[in-house]
């Protein structure tokens, strides 16, 4: 009755030895299963397991929120909210190897909602003839606050500026693909479109960036 099909399931060896934190490359099955096991532990109240998940993904989530909000501090706050919501909904998560999809869907919803609130605030501030504080700060950091921050060189500045001029949908897909290493299928699930739509948004985003970026800025 018992057999060796477990040989095909390296994930079960990963408890206590999560996959490396590097997000290079695609989301491997072993990595997905390690994330699932951490979520299972978190669902049982294990805060240490949850802390591992936060540590693994916080920079990516902050980058992603920053690309949507164009503001470093707001991105930081949004990322905090993302993980608080992840904790609050951990019992709802079904461990099917789609943790990143789940996480970035939460991140997208939170960041976009904040972005909409910010726009409303800015519109009101403009209407009444005074400046909204967050608006003033946001304008100085333009888009890519997220990335910001340790890339102060000229090419990074050009990239932030170019990203800020992209259509929101193209930027969303590009960021999920290249900042966060999501596959087309994962991106499609997060943005609620088909993989081919995700693919074409990434392509058009790249093409638009190629037009916007001065040639010498890409090194």
């Amino acid at each position, binding site marked *: *009755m*018992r*057999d*060796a*099909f*477990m040989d095909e*399931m390296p*994930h079960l*060896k990963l*408890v*206590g030895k999560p996959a490396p934190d590097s997000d290079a490359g695609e989301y491997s099955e072993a990595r997905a299963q390690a994330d699932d*096991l951490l979520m*299972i*532990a978190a*669902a*049982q*109240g*294990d*805060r240490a397991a*949850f802390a591992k998940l*936060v*540590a693994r993904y*916080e*920079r*990516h989530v*902050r*980058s992603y929120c*920053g690309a949507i909000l164009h503001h470093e501090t707001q*991105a*930081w706050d949004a*990322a*905090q909210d993302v*993980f*608080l919501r992840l*904790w609050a909904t951990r*019992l709802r998560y*079904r*461990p*099917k*190897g789609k943790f990143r999809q789940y996480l970035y869907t939460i991140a997208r919803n939170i960041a976009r909602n904040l972005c909409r609130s910010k726009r409303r605030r800015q519109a009101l501030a403009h209407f009444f003839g005074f400046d909204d504080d967050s608006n003033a700060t946001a304008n100085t950091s333009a888009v*890519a606050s997220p*990335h*910001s*921050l*340790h*890339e102060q060189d000229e*090419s*990074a500045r050009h*990239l932030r500026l170019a990203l800020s001029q992209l259509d929101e949908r193209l930027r969303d897909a*590009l960021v999920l693909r*290249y*900042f966060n*290493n999501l596959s087309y299928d994962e991106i499609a699930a997060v943005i609620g479109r088909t993989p081919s739509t995700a693919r074409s948004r*990434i*392509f058009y985003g*790249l*093409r638009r960036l*190629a037009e916007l970026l001065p040639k010498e800025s*890409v*090194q």
Partner: protein
Amino acid sequence: MKCLDEQTLAAFMEGELSTNAAGELQAHLSDCAGCRQAFERLREIAGQLRRVRAAEDPHFVSQVLERLPAGHRRHPGRWLVGLALPAAATLAVCWSTPSHHHDGEFVARGSARPGPAEPATHLGVEVFVHQQSRERNRVAMRGGERIENGDGFSFVVSNRFGRDVYLCLFAIDNAQAVHWFYPSYTDAATEPQAIRVPATPAIMPLSQGVTPEGLAPGRLSVVALFLARPVRVSEVEKVVAGAALSAIAQRLPVLAQQTQIIDVIK
């Protein structure tokens, strides 16, 4: 080969072209400076995007943890499905409402002597079904799944009860045959006992998955019994043969029981 559009170059960069098409494109790139330049530019932009990361923030994780609700309530419903409690009425309450027992992070007040831990909220098994016919074949079992003969099971166990317990994992098919997962019971001449599950805050994967053979089509009950002592498989089979699953707890030293029902379609 004529010059390439950017979409094809992007597909090449993403590794989406067939081997033949990629080979042709590579050959063209080595001959055509214009396409090579366009390709290099796309690749450099993608590379630059990949290097973008938020700055390190050593306080981020601790800030999140500080903001988590203190002393959350434990909800057995999702992960710890089907608790074996003596009375059916109690069982119904536990299914429908969260337990109010708190985990170790919650400070006890008003009593010098802590009460006993509730086993049903501290013991649990997560069962995964590995369906051969599915591309992504691992599914956490929630009841109601449809499986076929040849599909496998794997298990992750949690014991935060504070002391070692013993576990029997088995399935009862539509023909009332018992299929043992843990302990391994393949030789009728042996008499294995329930496996020991040490108390630990970590979740523990059981070392081997199991593919049961000869499951009768129809309803399959997957049962996990957490026991106070290492009972023998024959004891369990005797009780299972003579009583409903809900009555097992009255005849064996069961601390907690999980039962999930799925369908064997062929």
